[in-house]
């Protein structure tokens, strides 16, 4: 189907609504950095869950999951289970997240200055900013190509699409902060949930479950159905992969700034834990449905298409005009909330934990609330410029899903191990934290530089290896520091 005037009108109406609510209404509520970053901790359970889903469902989510489904078939649906298990586990037990919620911190690096030292906070802030921004850096390019395919805009206008998309997001993010995001999330969630349900149900109606299964079996064989083929240990999604994903998702839910900010925005620790428990179920669908779209695209197109183009081509091919505008607004909604939240999340790390630390080091005191807000907004703008540049010049190799996870892994193994042992192991020390972050970052750093074949073959081992090295680093570093300097004077403040 082609993108008609009706579709364009629906999208335009959506943009006007979002822009109006985000910029004009909310500005009066934003007083200080607390309002701006965590909505002054006023978010209830349903709003928290809605906001969490909006943040973590972007067009990029659909694209990387659909790529997996298109390339690996039904077997790749196994990827949906580790996040669900991690959410349930943390939400039900309160493991790590409950102590963090009770500390009332705004960013994860704050924990490190309380438990270890300001130097660790600064180091973590840098790793988080680099990993997070490299991760975020591929979003605009991939999504702009997706938008252009669905709408029929020629691909050589990809830069223009990126700039328009990011400018819209930037305007209301800069003005409203977290309060603005929470309000606009409501409208966005209504659209994106409609889109997800419609594409799945209508796709099965058009293509047929029988045809989908037949295509996978005929063209992929058992590998396309059984995630553990040829064996539990040798399968692409075997034991090593599952262990890596369980560790990875536990770390993401503890330390991924866009997610943990949602946690810190909740009004109490009970609400935060409840949001996590229920997010498990939502995250199962968040992965299953887009992966299934990729599988539908595989069945629909008998000739191979680019794995990242499969989903937009499917949407364009099967969704009727009129509904296409609504679906596109839903896709745009998903992206705008993710962009807004990620811009805010990563820039808060840069402004609070890196620039804030430098200012305090030089002047000997914290920046004023007004200056913090100005720094935060300037950082958002700088991050935006960087990701446009990165999107234009970085060439993606291997699964997009793995690239995103490996960039996050520059800090996630060290963060999970340092927070976990920092809370539950009294002998953990500053040297252990430094070593955990440094060793944990080495395998994913290696991943970013090796060839595409090695990337695919070694991803799981590099994944769980990062966590193992971080653990070794924390234990060895702490034990050595305890031997050399048994008195914990440096960390007495914690």
């Amino acid at each position: 189907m082609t993108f008609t005037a009706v579709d364009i009108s629906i999208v335009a109406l959506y943009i006007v609504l979002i822009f109006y609510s985000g910029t004009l209404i909310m500005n009066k509520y934003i007083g200080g950095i607390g309002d701006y970053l965590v909505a002054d901790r006023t978010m209830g359970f349903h709003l928290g869950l809605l906001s969490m889903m909006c943040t973590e469902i972007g067009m990029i989510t659909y694209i990387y999951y659909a790529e997996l489904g298109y390339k690996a078939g039904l077997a790749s649906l196994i990827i949906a289970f580790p996040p669900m298990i991690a959410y349930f586990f943390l939400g039900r037990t309160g493991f790590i997240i409950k102590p963090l919620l009770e500390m009332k911190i705004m960013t994860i690096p704050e924990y490190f200055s309380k438990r270890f030292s300001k130097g660790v906070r600064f180091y973590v802030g840098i790793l988080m900013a680099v990993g997070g921004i490299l991760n975020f850096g591929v979003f605009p390019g991939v999504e702009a190509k997706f938008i252009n395919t669905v709408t029929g805009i020629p691909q050589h206008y990809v830069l223009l699409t990126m700039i328009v998309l990011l400018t819209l997001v930037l305007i209301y993010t800069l003005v409203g902060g977290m309060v603005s995001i929470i309000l606009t999330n409501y409208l966005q969630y209504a659209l994106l949930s409609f889109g997800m349900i419609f594409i799945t149900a209508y796709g099965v109606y058009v293509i047929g479950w029988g045809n989908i299964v037949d295509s996978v079996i005929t063209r992929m064989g058992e590998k396309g159905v059984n995630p553990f083929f040829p064996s539990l240990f040798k399968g692409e999604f075997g034991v090593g992969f599952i262990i890596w994903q369980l560790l990875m998702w536990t770390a993401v839910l503890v330390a991924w700034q866009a997610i943990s900010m949602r946690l810190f925005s909740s009004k109490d620790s009970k609400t935060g834990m409840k949001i996590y428990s229920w997010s498990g179920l939502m995250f199962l669908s968040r992965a299953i449905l887009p992966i299934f779209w990729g599988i539908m695209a595989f069945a629909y197109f008998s000739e191979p298409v680019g794995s990242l183009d499969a989903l937009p081509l499917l949407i364009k091919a099967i969704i009727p005009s009129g509904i296409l505008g609504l679906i596109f607004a839903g896709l745009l909604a998903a992206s705008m909330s993710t962009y807004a939240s990620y811009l805010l999340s990563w820039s808060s790390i840069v402004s609070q934990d890196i620039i804030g630390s430098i200012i305090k080091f030089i002047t000997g005191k914290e920046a004023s609330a007004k200056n913090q807000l100005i720094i935060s907004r300037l950082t958002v703008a700088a991050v935006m410029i960087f990701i446009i540049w990165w999107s234009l010049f970085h060439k993606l190799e291997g699964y997009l899903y793995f690239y995103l996870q490996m960039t996050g892994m520059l800090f996630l193994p060290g963060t999970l191990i340092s927070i976990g042992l920092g809370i539950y192991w009294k002998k953990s020390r500053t040297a252990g934290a430094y070593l955990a972050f440094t060793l944990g970052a080495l395998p994913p750093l290696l991943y970013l530089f090796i060839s595409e074949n090695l990337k695919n073959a070694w991803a799981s081992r590099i994944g769980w290896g990062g966590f193992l090295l971080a653990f070794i680093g924390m234990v060895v570093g702490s034990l050595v520091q305890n031997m050399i300097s048994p008195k914990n004077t440096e960390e007495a403040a914690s």
Partner: protein
Amino acid sequence: MSAWIIFWGLVVLFSLLSFTYMSVKILIKSIAELKSMFGALEEKRKAS
């Protein structure tokens, strides 16, 4: 292989139904929470 196909079919169906149910529930119940959140922020604004 048949067992896997049935399993994945059930997983997709369950995901679609649970997502639909949860989305409707969240959208309805969030309205009251939005009102309460802005009420609290409005009070704080007036107080300052």
